[in-house]
């Protein structure tokens, strides 16, 4: 009985059944061939089945069949376009996970973020990845644009690809901008309030535009929902559409541009031929892409866990309370800088619009047929000039150049900002001993004789306070100034810290006082560094065992 079964035959049958299934799934690659692809081996069959998938498979038909060897040189592209798509994908995946918990209403948004941070396993990591990924997307989109500009890759048949790229840059910026509002904290609320108020300066339609964006004269439930829908539906769909066009032009029509030296450089014919050698998508480009994805994920994760302080979350948005320091996201600092140069309508709307039009029109204005650096001195120097201006404007838009405040307010805001860490929050809770500490009267050392190990952090904080007050007194900003710091035990695990500065106002001749009360709880970390610290600690302890 057993002998009648031909094992060789059975093996053959199973093999061909599996092989068939694999061919159906991979749209044409057999099991041996698949193995060869993954190992980077040459094709196992003839004709080369790796070309077939580009017509039979949907996912492969949108990928290029090959790139020219010269265009895959790392120093030519730096893989910036690929990395932009990589970060878009990270945003898509983490974003969908965040959407499970996020509630787009003014009363629900902030608590849902707190829930993501404190009750959802890996929720905080998703939020950090999403936030850091968003900034990376902006950076890589911009770097990709610079690379394309400086290698002259936008010319001739690629001019429309450039055009769609500029649209994608705009979509990326708007995606970040509307995503910025969603946590519904003070940071988000005021940055977006300022941002949308720019729309108000648009000529003729400003008021209406502002109303359409905010859903009401002020941002509220309507504005939040609009920002949410733009962020999760409209802009992503638009991005997908434009990205498809952008990518199709690269992958199916023109390929990645060759470095200029191979097209117009004075190099041997042999090398030019080598540069035009085809590198097939399967297996080389494909495995390279997988490798880049893994590398990107690894670097993103390591940066998020070990080098990133965590996505910020300030106090819940309060329309009644304008914060002392408001700050736009860094990629809009250039716009803030421009606003300081002049009128809101001209500098905030008209000039930026003209600049964007100029950016769109670059390939149509630049009729110079050459692509190498030396043959396009004007374009290259204009590009360098543009980048420098952008950096300068961003620098001018830095919050340091913000609104003037009285010395007392500035000192106290620097020591204990309304939001975030600040020197006061860095003093360990135990070192805040109840008492009255008077600047220039209390001893500078040994501030807490009752503590066995002293209170070095508190002492250095008090020294900082003293320095700042004395500096302002010397500068004549605090005439007859005196300053005091009072620490009280307020509740179990809660201390009240009062900072009061008194000075004579020269204009009115009156004595003025500015004071701030800060409540500090033993468990409050305010800084967002717990997760990263924990990751470090965890790694060290777990590896040690």
């Amino acid at each position, binding site marked *: 009985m057993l002998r009648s079964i031909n094992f060789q035959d059975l093996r053959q049958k199973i093999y061909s059944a599996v092989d068939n299934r694999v061919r159906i799934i991979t749209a044409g690659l057999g099991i041996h061939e698949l193995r060869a692809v*993954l*190992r*980077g081996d040459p094709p196992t069959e003839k004709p080369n089945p790796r070309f077939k998938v580009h017509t039979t498979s949907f996912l492969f038909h949108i990928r290029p069949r090959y790139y020219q060897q010269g265009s895959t040189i790392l120093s030519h592209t730096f893989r910036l376009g690929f990395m932009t798509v990589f970060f878009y994908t990270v945003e898509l995946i983490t974003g969908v996970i965040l959407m499970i918990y996020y509630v787009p209403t003014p*009363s629900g948004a*902030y*608590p849902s973020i*707190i829930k993501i*941070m*404190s*009750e959802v*396993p*890996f929720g*905080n*990591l998703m939020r950090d990845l999403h936030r850091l990924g968003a900034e990376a997307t902006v950076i890589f989109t911009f770097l990709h644009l610079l690379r394309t500009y400086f290698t002259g890759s936008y010319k001739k048949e690629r001019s429309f690809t450039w055009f769609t790229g500029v649209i994608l840059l705009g979509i990326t910026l708007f995606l970040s901008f509307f995503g910025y509002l969603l946590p519904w904290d003070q940071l988000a609320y005021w940055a977006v309030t300022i941002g949308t108020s720019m729309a108000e300066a648009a000529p003729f339609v400003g008021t209406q535009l502002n109303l359409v964006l905010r859903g009401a004269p002020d941002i509220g439930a309507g504005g939040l929902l609009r920002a949410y829908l733009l962020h999760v539906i409209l802009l992503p769909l638009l991005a997908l559409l434009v990205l498809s066009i952008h990518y199709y032009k690269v992958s199916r029509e023109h390929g990645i541009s060759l470095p200029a030296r191979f097209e117009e450089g004075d190099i041997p014919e042999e090398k030019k031929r080598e540069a035009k050698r085809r590198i097939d998508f399967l*297996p*080389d480009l494909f*495995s*390279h892409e*997988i*490798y880049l994805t*893994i*590398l990107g*994920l*690894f670097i993103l*994760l*390591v940066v998020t*866990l070990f080098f990133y302080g965590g996505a910020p979350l300030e*106090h*819940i948005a309060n329309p009644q309370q304008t914060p002392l320091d408001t700050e736009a996201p860094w990629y809009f600092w250039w716009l803030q800088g421009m606003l300081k140069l002049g009128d809101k309508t001209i500098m905030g709307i008209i000039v930026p619009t003209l600049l964007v039009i100029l950016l769109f029109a670059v390939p149509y204005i630049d009729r110079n047929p050459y692509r190498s650096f030396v043959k396009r001195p004007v374009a290259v120097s204009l590009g360098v000039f543009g980048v420098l201006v952008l950096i300068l404007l961003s620098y001018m838009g830095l919050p340091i150049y913000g609104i003037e405040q009285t010395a007392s307010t500035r000192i106290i805001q620097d020591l204990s900002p309304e939001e975030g860490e600040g020197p006061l929050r860095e003093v360990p809770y135990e070192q805040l001993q*109840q*008492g*009255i500490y008077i600047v220039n009267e209390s001893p500078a050392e040994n501030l807490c004789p009752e503590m066995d190990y002293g209170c070095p952090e508190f002492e250095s904080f008090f020294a900082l306070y003293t320095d700042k007050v004395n500096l302002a007194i010397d500068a004549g900003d605090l005439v007859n100034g005196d300053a005091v710091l*009072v*620490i*009280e*035990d*307020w*509740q*179990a*695990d*809660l201390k*009240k810290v009062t900072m009061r500065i008194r000075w004579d106002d020269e204009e009115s001749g009156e004595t003025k006082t500015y004071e701030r*009360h800060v*409540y*500090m*709880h*033993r*468990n*409050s*970390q*305010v800084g967002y560094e*717990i*997760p990263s610290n*924990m*990751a470090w*600690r*965890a*790694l060290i302890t*777990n590896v040690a065992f």
Partner: protein
Amino acid sequence: MSRSNLEILLGVILVSITTVILVVYGFNEQDRMVLESENQQAREIEVGATLFENNCTGCHGLKGEGIPGLCPPLNNKEFFTTRMKEVGWSGSLEDYIISTVAGGRVASTRPDQYVGQGNPAMPSWSDQYGGPLREDQIASIAQFIMNWESTALEEVVLEELATPTPSPEEAADPVARGQQVYLDSGCGGCHTIQGLTSGTVGPNQTNLATNAQTRIPGMSAEDYIRQSIVDPSAYIVEGFTDGIMPKNYSETLQPDQLSDLIAFLLSLK
């Protein structure tokens, strides 16, 4: 080794490292979430403390000690032990606080002990009922009040901050001492003195010394003020009702405190 093979090797190594990092992170995720919850609760208490200071201290005292005869204390044993039974509240104390702050009190539940600040006895604070505070802000205030539990039940005893001895000039000045009496006795919970207090239940006292001269013909400002403190029902300013101001200040204030207080009020021209 070809580039492709090198990348496959490196890719496998990186995937392994990434997985290890994620697993280690995952092991500590529970602890991190607990810490983060504590952090968020602590931040809420801090926010609640500021809101309490800005909105509630006028009546309930700087540290929730209340004003005898007017507003009940919150930092107090009865509040945390028997109050819920007294009013027949079946939910948690925190919910009771939230509901009271949000809706206020039309009339006092204990009119013989705490009349409240008039009509209504306590205003509604929720913006749903015309008050100034949002839902989340009221929840933060409740968190802050709940944090008094351990001190109210005397499980934790906090030392008071020793107040600095007043400077010789201040100690010698009855007006300065009187101002301290005014603040310590909770007068500001009901009365306004511009730049000092902002109560709205009782008459505005910013220009009291001037007004007092003409209130009752033939009575000096000093006598009128003294009478109004020790026997508030003797004369009621138009637009205000009798019976709201406590009548026991002649007992709770020492004679020299009373004269300091009068000296302070007479300085309000």
